[in-house]
């Protein structure tokens, strides 16, 4: 029996979520009085995992796995889980992990709970808390199968250091021809920008910004904070910003530490998308905007006056705290 965790990497380097899921796996393993095995796929240096309580690392290195391929990656994780006799398999909530988790679950005949936000409240029965109704509620979900698959929500558990002496082993999963039926033609990714998925801070603009030509100050504020930019649904519907920045019930959920909403009134669908963010700041000229009821801090004022001031003050703050 063990807990298996898929520690995601990109171009050889672990993503931050890899350390978060490893931290979470350690907590679950402690509850079950067992050990944590991590599977890595083409990671260049797995020693970093030791700090997060990983007892054993299975390093799969295979040129066929250089590009993400859900079916093949799921097969590798499934084979690792079977080899390790894992009773719990843990993955993150990145786009790629969400892609392959259901395939892993079917392969292992395992019950799957996604968007999990806490360690199990009970291990017998195995019960986890997860967000439902797009963050408008939580469900306490019991997984009744022998093997359990958990998708951990981003930023739900955080990084917890637990030094361990991870044993490294190479791992060579086998693949069938059908595992590589999806062929990547092109990838269009802004490598120099913080993405909503990875961001600790998100700066988001709404219709109150009046037009796409006014997004410069949103981007400048995001740059000062090292944040990702996002927008409300009307803004992406109007084509001012790409759909990939649309936050809300039919867009992206945001679970950042800080969410700054500028000129967004706070429709119920938008609030559902940002409910998991820890601290919310709203800037809006309308004191009756519903967002003020959901926010921690608010500024009633004209965004075109408040945001430049905020940028200036944050620059001063950064200079003083550099």
């Amino acid at each position, binding site marked *: 029996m063990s807990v298996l965790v898929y520690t995601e990497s990109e171009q050889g380097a672990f993503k931050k979520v890899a350390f978060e899921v490893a931290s979470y796996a350690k907590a679950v393993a402690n509850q079950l009085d067992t050990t944590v095995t991590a599977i890595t796929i083409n990671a260049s240096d797995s020693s970093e995992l030791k700090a997060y309580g990983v007892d054993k690392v299975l390093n799969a290195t295979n040129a066929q796995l250089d590009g993400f391929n*859900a*079916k093949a990656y799921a097969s590798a994780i499934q084979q690792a889980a079977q080899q390790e006799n894992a009773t719990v398999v843990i993955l993150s909530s990145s*786009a*790629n992990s969400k*892609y392959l988790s*259901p*395939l892993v*679950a*079917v*392969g292992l005949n395992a019950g*799957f*709970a*996604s*968007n999990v936000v806490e360690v199990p409240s009970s291990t017998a029965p195995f019960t986890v808390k997860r967000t*439902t*109704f797009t963050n*408008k*509620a*939580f*469900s*306490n*979900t*019991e*997984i*009744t199968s022998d093997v359990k698959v958990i998708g951990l929500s981003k930023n739900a558990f955080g990084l917890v250091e637990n030094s361990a002496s991870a044993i490294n082993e190479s791992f060579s999963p086998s693949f069938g021809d*059908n595992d590589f*039926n*999806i*062929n*990547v*033609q*092109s*990838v*269009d*990714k*802004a490598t120099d920008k913080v*993405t*909503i*998925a*990875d961001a600790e*801070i998100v700066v988001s603009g709404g219709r109150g910004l009046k037009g796409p030509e006014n997004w410069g100050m949103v981007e400048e504020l995001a740059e000062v904070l090292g944040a990702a930019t996002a927008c409300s649904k009307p803004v992406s519907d109007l084509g001012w910003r790409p*759909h990939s920045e649309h936050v809300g*019930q*039919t*867009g992206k959920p945001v679970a950042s*530490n*800080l969410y700054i909403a500028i000129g967004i009134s706070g429709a*119920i669908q938008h609030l559902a998308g940002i409910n998991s963010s820890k*601290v919310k*700041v*709203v800037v809006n000229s309308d004191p009756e905007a519903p967002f*003020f009821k959901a*926010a*921690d*801090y608010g*500024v009633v004022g004209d965004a075109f*006056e*408040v945001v430049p*001031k905020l940028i200036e*003050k944050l620059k001063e703050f950064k200079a003083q705290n550099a």
Partner: protein
Amino acid sequence: MKILVCISHVPDTTSKINFTEGDTKFDTNGVQFVINPNDEFGLTRAMWFKEKQGASVDVVNVGGPETEPTLRKALAIGADSAIRVNAIATDGIFVAKQLASVIENGGYDLVIAGRESIDYNGGMVPGMIAGLTGANFVNTCINLEVDGTNATATREIDGGKETVTTSLPLIIGGQKGLVEESDLRIPNMRGIMMARKKPLTVVEPTSGEAQTKDVTFQKPAEKGSVKLVDADNIDELVSLLHNEAKVI
């Protein structure tokens, strides 16, 4: 091309969420149910294939009789026929097994499901039906073209998008981007009248046990009131974010 669109029957996005029976059941009182938005984008894309490439489009839902108005709406939008698997949708794998059975019996070339439903947000059914049927699978799909048995799909990835090629049979987990919001169709009177005459077949569930169950629900804790900062005192906001919230 034979297309199946999986339709979830979900509370409208503006619904207030409440629970009954000791927080063990979703309170449907006063809730308007709609086609899951991610499925609606997929249905509209299927209509495009029907009109431009002569595809046939069936829709399917796993649910009780109360979900039939949602299926009728999909027929009014233009689907040719509907299937209701007569079972309560208990969890993702149970639903996926029912859909996999419909897919295998129907011999579909393309299955379009929403990447997730906006009620239980499991995000697992499209991937699970792909796992069960062995079909090719693209998740978070934001564009799809089909030429013969070849498909080109674009999927959203963290921080960008990726274009892939694959072949039919194909299952996609779709979302906004498959079509734009402005392309979504509202059923007209003729569509509604025609939908009454279109076949809605009820089939009994195949075997398949749930592997998860929602034991209780809870709502997020009430939030304290917002701390307002004067627009002329942005220093205070920076100070609060640093010293109190500790997020910068």
